């Protein structure tokens, strides 16, 4: 009988790996409180809450945050509609080119972001479309579709045929069946997919650098600070806030789809 307990070496390697994944993120939380404002000195010479107030009063941070939220909300809404339609079609019928449709949905996230970015940029250039909030949204919605699609397609598969037939036997037409049977069943999967799409869009930077004009989303703002640090303490605070804000939808999506075979987030 192979032993049912992990060897000590395996345990140490596994937990060391997890530590490697988490320590850098925890470090961000300490740096948000440091009194040092010119270098990345460790250990911090002192701790202060001052930078939270400074960040709160920065209009550029607020503008970037507002734009990010707006872009994420609209892209998520578009992705929810398009992703659900696609999932419904793929899961309800076998048709010619079905595999191609799944591939097409996954492609924007399977290819490196820079390809998606430069492809969109050259297309907007060729089409004479000026770079604006709209072009950012076009890009984001494109790669958010896959997240909604993945969650919805897994749930559609679990809706049983007999349930839909029973609904029809009881006199419901297709729309009523959708409203009273299908929607309640796929609701949490859509909510989870929407949350993940929101998190994905909120954080996206590579495609955005190619599709944005003068507008700065929060990740673009952070990127500028990373390349040319001017406001290190403010960046520290914003970084910590971003971590906290993205954790919420991820935890939410996990609890909504827990127990199913398709726990959300596996295929970012």
């Amino acid at each position, binding site marked *: 009988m192979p032993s049912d307990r992990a060897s000590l070496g395996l345990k140490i390697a596994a937990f060391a790996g997890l530590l490697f994944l988490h320590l*850098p993120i925890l470090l961000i939380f300490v740096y948000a409180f440091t009194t040092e404002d010119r270098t990345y000195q460790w250990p911090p010479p002192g701790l202060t809450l001052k930078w939270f107030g400074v960040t709160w009063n920065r209009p550029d941070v607020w503008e970037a945050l507002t734009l990010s939220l707006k872009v994420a909300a609209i892209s998520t809404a578009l992705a929810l509609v398009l992703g659900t339609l696609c999932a419904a079609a793929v899961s309800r019928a076998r048709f010619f080119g079905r595999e191609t449709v799944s591939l097409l949905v996954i492609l924007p996230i399977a290819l*490196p972001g820079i390809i998606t970015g430069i492809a969109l940029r050259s297309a907007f250039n060729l089409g004479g479309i000026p770079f604006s909030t709209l072009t950012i949204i076009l890009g984001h919605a494109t790669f958010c579709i896959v997240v909604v699609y993945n969650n919805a397609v897994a749930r559609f598969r679990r809706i049983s045929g007999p349930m839909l037939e029973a609904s029809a036997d009881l006199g419901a037409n297709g729309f009523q069946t959708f409203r009273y049977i299908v929607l309640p069943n796929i609701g949490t999967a859509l909510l989870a997919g929407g949350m993940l799409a929101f998190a994905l869009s909120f954080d996206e930077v590579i495609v955005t650098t190619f599709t944005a004009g003068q507008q700065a989303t929060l990740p673009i703002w952070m990127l500028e600070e990373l390349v040319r640090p001017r406001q290190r303490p403010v960046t520290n605070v914003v970084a910590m806030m971003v971590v906290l804000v993205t954790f919420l939808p991820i935890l939410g999506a996990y609890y909504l789809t827990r127990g199913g075979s398709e726990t959300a987030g596996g295929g970012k």
Partner: protein
Amino acid sequence: MAALARLTDPLSDLFWRRPRVLLVLLLAPPLLWLVVVYIGSLAALLVQSFFSIDEFTGLIKHEFTLKTYAELFRPANFDIVIRTTVMAAAVTIAAAIISFPIAYYAARYARGRMKAFFYLAVMLPLWSSYLVKVYAWKLILAKEGILTWAVDGIGASAVLNAILALPVIGGNSLSVSYIGTFLVFLYVWLPYMILPLQASLERVPQNLLEASDDLGASRRQTLRHVILPMAMPGMIAGSIFTFSLTLGDYIIPQIVGSSRNFIGQAVYAHQGTAGNIPLAAAFAVVPIVIMGFYLWVAKRKGAFDAL
């Protein structure tokens, strides 16, 4: 309600009698979107890579030529391709090694709450902000940062200095060396390796391990001859992510690394300040070709069953 039913009933009947109509209505919006916005853009990119730039005027000549692709093979450009590919391979191998114990423990030994803990412990870093993760490493690797402090603390600064003195991969400090770039890539893409690897390890049947044990195999032999071959598809699936993401990234080497370029930076520089869109497009085609080849090999090895 009755008025609504009068409106929806005929439609509903139509969908029932002619399911294809519904299918087309469902598929049309997402397909139109993806084909117009995405495939259209990719095509536009591909077309541009066959144009060239006039050396005297700096304007794009809109006629078919392979000249731009030939430029990729000039030493300066070809170095970039090689450097990026080697980095992607190194990151992929290191990620596979570090992921294995985590994935194996989570798949074989973690139960109940422990399993949920492992799942979230991988998922949260995966989904936390990419830029924040890169920023965290800028803090860690800085000369005055925590790593130097820790190395000094255990009295190993001589070792660190010796590593930094190495040619090519060393540098003035970790944050401006290839080692630094490698560490950040490894950190940021690690969860993409753990998840598919764990999925494939979950599928190794317990009785197969018992059979191996009954036939007298040691732990090491079971690992080598039973578990590793069955984990291979998951590992290849994970490597698709780590490889592809490293090939296409231009932000990490820009923030942590030496000044030598990677493919992504070359694409960004050529389309931006240099204004050489055809060369940028040709550079962007390189990862597509490498990944196409990689996916073709992976498909033959059956990696997609583990996705």
